[in-house]
């Protein structure tokens, strides 16, 4: 494998990284909203959130991609390859992140919430001082898991015509007939990208660590 081919892979890995990071960021934001809905007492909000989660977790990402790319234009909405890919990745990962968030909030000990109520905190105070800090610490590992999973799943977006690292590796291996070194290089690039993500996750956990005096 020449440097030129490796450079092409690195370039494609750049698209993988950018699209995945954008999807992770949008996914967490949408996930927060969906999680809020899923935890709400309002029946309608609750139902909508649960519907959202079951759709985006239930339909395979590959099919979601094709739905966004092919079905939306048929309904009169023009979408580019890139926006279809970003839309599907973000909305899909949002469903998983919403469940991760919900899991975090459900795991906040009941006794702490009762204690907060006892000392007269308002609901907002209780959320800011007790529930959110505890929940965030609890859900960080699983949210990082999902971030890494969506980075890997981004290999699927080539089906709507976005060139990312897996697709580039396929292109190069089918024209050079040397799949092994090319896929090995692509694997290495994924390893580096997930390494950076995992490192960021650890850093965040360390920053948020509770120090017992």
């Amino acid at each position, binding site marked *: 494998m020449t440097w*030129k081919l490796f450079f092409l892979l690195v370039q494609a890995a750049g698209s993988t990284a950018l699209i995945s990071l954008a999807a992770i960021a949008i996914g967490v934001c949408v996930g927060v909203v969906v999680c809020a809905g899923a935890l709400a007492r309002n029946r309608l909000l609750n139902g909508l959130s649960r519907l959202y989660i079951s759709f985006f977790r239930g339909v395979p990402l*590959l099919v979601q991609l094709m739905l966004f*790319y*092919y*079905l939306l234009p048929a309904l009169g909405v023009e979408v580019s390859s890139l926006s279809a890919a970003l839309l599907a990745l973000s909305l899909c990962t949002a469903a998983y992140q919403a469940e991760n968030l919900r899991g975090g909030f459900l795991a906040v000990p009941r006794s702490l919430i009762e204690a907060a109520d006892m000392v007269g905190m308002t609901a907002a105070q209780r959320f800011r001082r007790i529930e959110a800090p505890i929940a965030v610490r609890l859900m960080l590992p699983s949210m990082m898991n999902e971030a890494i999973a969506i980075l890997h799943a981004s290999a699927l977006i080539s089906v709507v*015509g976005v*060139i990312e690292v897996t697709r580039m590796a396929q*292109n190069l291996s089918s024209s050079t*007939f040397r799949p092994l070194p090319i896929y090995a290089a692509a694997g290495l690039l994924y390893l580096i990208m997930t390494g950076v993500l995992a490192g960021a996750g650890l850093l965040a956990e360390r920053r948020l660590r509770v120090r017992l005096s």
Partner: protein
Amino acid sequence: MNRRGLLCAAVIGLFALSHTASADVLAEVKKAAVLKVGTETQFAPFDYIDSGEHVGFNVDLFAAVGKEMGVQIQWVALPWAGVLPGLEAAKFDIVAGPAIITKERLERYTFSVPIAEGTVALNKRASDTAIKKPEDIAGKAVGGGRGSNQLAQLKTFAATLTPPATVREYVGADEGMADLAAGRIVAYSASLPNAAAAAKARPDMFGLVLPAFGSKAYFGYVGRKDEASASLMQAVNDAIDKLKKDGRMAALQQKWFGTTFDMPAMAAASAI
């Protein structure tokens, strides 16, 4: 070429229902002065990425066709699983696969006039001296691409041998050729131009087993089979016929395949 992904096939049904047909595709193409062509870019020597550049027989041929029609060519590169759904959803108007023209496929799609011969040949490992002619695969494991015409022909051929060869199915040529290199099969069936390209790209690893066998088959470009697309396919055919007459087609075939082919004039006549 192979048909990948049952999942995608299921989704095609949806698109077929929802696909909004325009009145006349050729008129729209002329108006925009752009012909959108869908392709896979993993089908050397027809269409592939060479050091980052999209090149191949298709690229040159469509450049000439575009010139004849007075339109720009805009390439839309998708994995094969997305190419036919994309055609049906009108993301582009013709597919530069190309695909072998078969009677079964003609029932669902329109094909251009033949552009190359695609009779089946085998790739083997260059180091394998036991296989000198196609019949030498008797009793051994061989492979072909799922859904491909080459696989169907290989199966027919394998069954006539004593003892018959075992045929394994692969998602695509990349996987099959990787298994050939790994020694799990002794030969992989591809169309003659593709098989020759593999042997040429990696002479240290792959060899070509001649002669080609099975029924003579031809490659054509794929279009939608609706009335709106008929005029476009006719215009593409007219352009290709012109290239055939003035020798440009033969020059392109010589450039990319190292040989020229005698081809039937019409898609229907070349279907197998």
